[in-house]
């Protein structure tokens, strides 16, 4: 029995990956948990140029979830390649560079710099607001997503995941379009778009009005979308959204995910991912599964 699993040609020690934006560049958690045991780590969302992120309140806890409005604060791709990436690689787990952008040119230039930089996998985040399209995210309309995936595919030669938004107008059509444009795999779901209002000031809590909802609250929705995506495409799908325990992870693997990501639950318990790794191992032994792919429902 082995937890080792292949993702886009990269061998992961196990199928448990830390989700982008929830694990910094890995080193932040190195003092708290044994980071080397993880299957992979997605970097904080990167953009070509550094971004300071949003002003005002950035987080609000909700029922079994949290809204965040960090706004892509990151040091920029060049800084990442020079400083954070070497340190990430030294941690052991597979390194997944998560890339966003405000327009296609920024995506492409970021991808070009990352190509050959040493990251194991590129995760293309198409949930960023498109500055040329009034701020509607690239990941909503299939045709818009298609263009950014096509352009980045030309610029990046390594294995590439496209991270889908649950706000996609037609998720399975979106998944198929990404596959057709050369994505090697998909990851989903990104955060749901939510909102919170301060009832005393009667204004949105967040300057940007909306914010991304994550956490156990969204798990049932994420699982349904992962199931649908797995049946729409033949490339691997990485499942995420509210996974907080091995049982959740097993549900996504049964639904057809090749690997899973743990995000917000790490904030509740820093060792969530490690206990998922342990729990999946015990689950596999109990059921006599030899490898992760055996977990998938027939």
């Amino acid at each position, binding site marked *: 029995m082995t937890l080792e699993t292949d993702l886009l040609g990269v061998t992961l020690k196990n199928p448990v990956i830390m989700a982008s*934006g*929830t*694990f*910094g560049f890995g080193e*932040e*958690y190195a*003092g*708290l*948990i044994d980071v080397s045991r993880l299957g992979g780590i997605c970097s*904080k969302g990167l953009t070509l140029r550094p971004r*300071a*992120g949003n*002003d005002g*309140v*950035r*987080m*609000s*806890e909700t029922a*079994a*979830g*949290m809204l*965040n409005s*960090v706004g892509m*604060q990151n040091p920029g791709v060049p800084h990442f390649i020079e400083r954070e990436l070497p340190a990430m690689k030294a941690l052991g787990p597979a390194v997944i560079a998560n890339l966003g952008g405000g327009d296609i040119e920024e995506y492409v230039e970021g991808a070009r710099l990352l190509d050959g930089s040493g990251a194991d996998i590129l995760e293309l985040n198409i949930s960023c607001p498109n500055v040329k399209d009034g701020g509607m995210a690239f990941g909503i309309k299939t045709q818009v997503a298609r263009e950014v995936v096509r352009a980045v595919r030309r610029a990046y030669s390594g294995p590439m995941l496209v991270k889908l938004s649950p706000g996609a107008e037609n998720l399975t059509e979106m998944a198929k379009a990404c596959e057709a444009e050369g994505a090697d795999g998909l990851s989903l779901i990104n955060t749901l778009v939510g909102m919170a209002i301060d009832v005393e000031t009667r204004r949105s809590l967040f300057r940007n009005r909306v914010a991304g909802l994550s*956490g*156990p609250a969204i798990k049932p929705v994420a699982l349904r979308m992962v199931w649908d995506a797995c049946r729409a495409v033949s490339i691997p799908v990485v499942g995420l959204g509210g996974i907080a325990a091995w049982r959740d992870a097993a549900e996504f693997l049964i639904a057809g995910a090749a690997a899973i990501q743990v995000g*917000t639950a*790490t*904030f*509740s*318990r*820093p*060792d969530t991912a490690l206990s998922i790794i342990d729990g999946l191992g015990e689950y596999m032994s109990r059921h006599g599964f030899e490898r992760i792919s055996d977990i998938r429902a027939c």
Partner: protein
Amino acid sequence: MLSEVLAVRSNEMLLPDIGRLTVEAAAPARPGQFYMLRPEHGAMLLGRAISLCDRQGEILTFLYKIVGKGTAELSRLREGDPLRLTGPLGNGFPLEDISGKIALIGGGVGVAPMVYTARALRERGNTADAFLGYPDSPYLHETMKTLCDKVTVATESGVCGAKGYVTDIFDPEKYAAVLCCGPLAMMRAVAEKCKAAGTPVWLSLENRMACGVGACLVCTCKGKSGGNLRVCADGPVFRGEEISLDA
């Protein structure tokens, strides 16, 4: 740093909205550091960032103010209940960089970190005066009297000490350094007075946090130079001139 589920040793309310909780943990911590506290069986997703109030032997003391569901949950913990403690986190006060007579300024529940700070200063042979401000009934001021040369209390209601703000009484000229933790308005006033007097000041900030370790970037504050600083990992203690306290 640890992230462990420990049994609550004691938990009592000092005032209707101010509680004091203790646990036993061996790992060392610096004054001004904090922990994420999350009841293991609680309904909240996230821990709450609470300053270390005191540490004697291996007993850690935390003071919290009930401001929402998370802190209300802390207040309901009883002896023996499982509580996840993650920490110590953040930088803490740079006591090794400070010498001479120190002023410790605490406002409300911001008084908490000053207790362990005063204790550590005394152990280092430093002397400190404390200036403690409260809206109404004071707390921890008696403990502070045992650890400081002089303790000045002010309350907005006038129920104890001077009526009004302790920042109006405090004179930065008399001190080699100032350490402050309290509401934003207090920290602004202290930073301004210290700047005018040329006295170095360190401020301990608070903010909503998720990870507590610098990974998630939800707790940032504005640096004076324009960039964002992480309250959890770059702070919670900042030099007065490092940060912007504008709304």
